[in-house]
């Protein structure tokens, strides 16, 4: 096994956006059960160091593949497609307007302490994100349209940030 192999090969997967999550979970646990530092608690220093490196490597790969956005970005990276940084100028105007509406709704609910409204926004946004995931699957795996896929990924990056803000607002309401 090559320590520097890409994350997909590490788990013996094809580099696709659609992936069998249960299988990934299982392979991750199998690998960790081989390389985790706890397996080397009474081993020599060299083996301890190697185990630390491998366990770190396996964790990184798993965390990247497990989350749809990270996985999509990683696929673009493997295809040597430069996503550029998040930049409003790259986004279509209607998308930005929509984002502003979302943010206003969150800010209002937060100011009014409307816990249930925030929960509702959270679920609505999650649905929307799942739709983006479907689109990305088609664009990356079936059509190999990197340009369009990158557009969806950028949108998803905005949505992820929005989701974190909603969760912060929910936390603030509970305190």
């Amino acid at each position: 096994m090559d320590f520097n192999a890409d994350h997909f090969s590490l788990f013996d997967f094809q580099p696709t956006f659609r992936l069998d999550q249960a299988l990934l979970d299982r392979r991750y646990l199998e690998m960790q059960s081989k390389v985790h530092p706890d397996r080397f608690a009474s081993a020599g220093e060299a083996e301890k160091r190697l185990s630390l490196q491998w366990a770190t490597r396996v964790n990184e790969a798993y965390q990247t593949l497990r989350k749809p956005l990270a996985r999509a970005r990683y696929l673009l990276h493997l295809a040597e497609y430069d996503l550029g940084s998040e930049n409003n100028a790259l986004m279509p105007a209607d998308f930005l307007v929509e984002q502003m509406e979302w943010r206003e709704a969150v800010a209002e609910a937060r100011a009014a302490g409307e816990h249930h409204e925030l929960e509702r926004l959270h679920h609505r946004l999650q649905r929307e994100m799942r739709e983006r995931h479907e689109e990305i699957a088609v664009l990356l795996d079936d059509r190999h349209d990197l340009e369009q896929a990158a557009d969806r990924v950028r949108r998803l990056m905005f949505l992820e940030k929005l989701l974190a803000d909603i969760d912060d607002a929910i936390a603030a309401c509970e305190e």
Partner: protein
Amino acid sequence: MALLQIAEPGESAAPHQHRLAVGIDLGTTNSLVATVRSGLAVVLSDELGRPLLPSVVRYLPDGSSEVGYEAQARQSLDPRNSIVSVKRFMGRGLQDIAHREGMPYVFDDAPGMLRLQTAAGRKSPVEVSAEILRTLRLRAEASLGGPLVGAVITVPAYFDDAQRQATKDAARIAGLPVLRLLNEPTAAAIAYGLDNASESIYAVYDLGGGTFDISILRLARGIFEVLATGGDSALGGDDFDHRIFCWMLEAAQLKPLSVEDSRMLLTRAREAKEYLTFHGVAPINARLNSGEAVDLTLTTEIFAEISQTLVAKTIQPVKKALRDAGLSVADVKGVVMVGGATRMPQVQHAVGEFFRQEPLNNLDPDKVVAIGAAKQANLLVGNGLAGDDWLLLDVIPLSLGLETMGGLVEKIIPRNATIPTARAQEFTTFRDGQTALAVHVVQGERELVSDCRSLARFELRGIPPMVAGAARIRVTFQVDADGLLAVTAREQTAGVEASIVVKPSYGLSDGEIAGMLRDSMLHVRDDALQRALKESQVDAQRLIEAVSSALATDGDLLSGEELARVEHGIVKLQGAASGENRRQIMLAMDDLEAETKDFAARRMDKSIRRAFAGRNISELDSEVLATRAGETA
């Protein structure tokens, strides 16, 4: 039996050889040591049959100390030199300590961690904890009849890097080889044997003497996965005592008290709290130094009322942890109760109400953590039985970040990331000809550096002078399986490579630790030299066993010549270990380590390949479990 077979652990001992290993619960109020004997985890009691060791250390003018019940009995006579709840001071500066004006100690502020002025001199919390650990080590060695191969020491899941590092240093001073720091809630789950269950989510609610922890765990097929942790490192049973104490002052209209009286009334407060667990009413009687009598009655209702905000304070982190894990109350299959403070009826009630189920209480909440730690220690030294195996996948409790322009924090490793983990970050210079760069690592969730805990400050020097932005310095932040951070930096422009390793410091340098080690030897009946020799003999034996068992399974990975060299190394080490020369043993160990370095890499490789090769069969097995696994996805 664990459903996922975790065969061939890295190194396992010869099956019939039992190695002495213990689990230690280093608690705020009480500490315990436990071990696995004949397959059963048991707490080791002292010579009077008492399982708990009160976490109290009293320092005497001759430089010696008393630990445990002895110290506790005299604490109200000599409060200044009787250190209780020292865990709260571990890795903490003076400004971090709540209610310190009510404490009878003479504090000294020192960079990183406070110090205590005692009759025996200036003591760091690390040294005080080391006294407790040493007492437990001696108890275990007396009871098990030999030096320990290793110990698993538990820490609150919420402990930050400084607190973990301080705990590890205390063990070092106490002469305890640490196999692993283990989060207390995870230890509790191990004690309950929850790995036997099918995949399910458990919450561990741990209200100890001085800390509160909530952990959300996913347990499946012999694997413990911490999904999220939260808590409050300055909230515990002591705060309930303090509430009762304040109520007493008010109810009895007491004038400002002497240190001794305060200590005595706090003890009465604790007794009343414990009494209320089994009774509806607790009488409180005390006589102050002035002769004034205190005569009060505390009812369950009053207690619930004055402690209501404390109980509520534990529910906030519970909600946050559930949200971090992306779960709701309905997903939680069971709630494990840990810590003596969970015996309080109002706590049981509040937890039951929040989770809408009766919490798990079958094991003694005071012993459950030590028992889990003992089971983990037993597994780590290779005493585990085939089929009785599990793996812990822990997370880092607080985010790690770097200071950026304007005192803001840029997160580099988010909280709840599975450890071990690493992150590399590239830095550059911002002035022409700049040859040094300052890096400041902090831990915490807040946006401002000043609101987070400073972990390490270091300067990268010797950068070749070039125009601004041309240098490329790669800094790697590695968090190991104990949750401890190490930083390495590499300058990679123009072929210049320099690498440094920075261990975060919290105020104790290696030199200071060495000094504390020497000090501690002065007052202990332990023969330091003899002990060090014995320890290296144990280490040597362990290495020989590890290499021999590796040769037995994977000897074919070596060429004839390589094999001969390794075998020669073993023979040499065996010879050295049977002698009395510690230096020679260390040298022979270093040689054998060097000789097996490539071998280790090849074995790791093979083991990972095997994970794939065995896959077809194990995946067939897993089909049966597919429905269950599918629920995780």
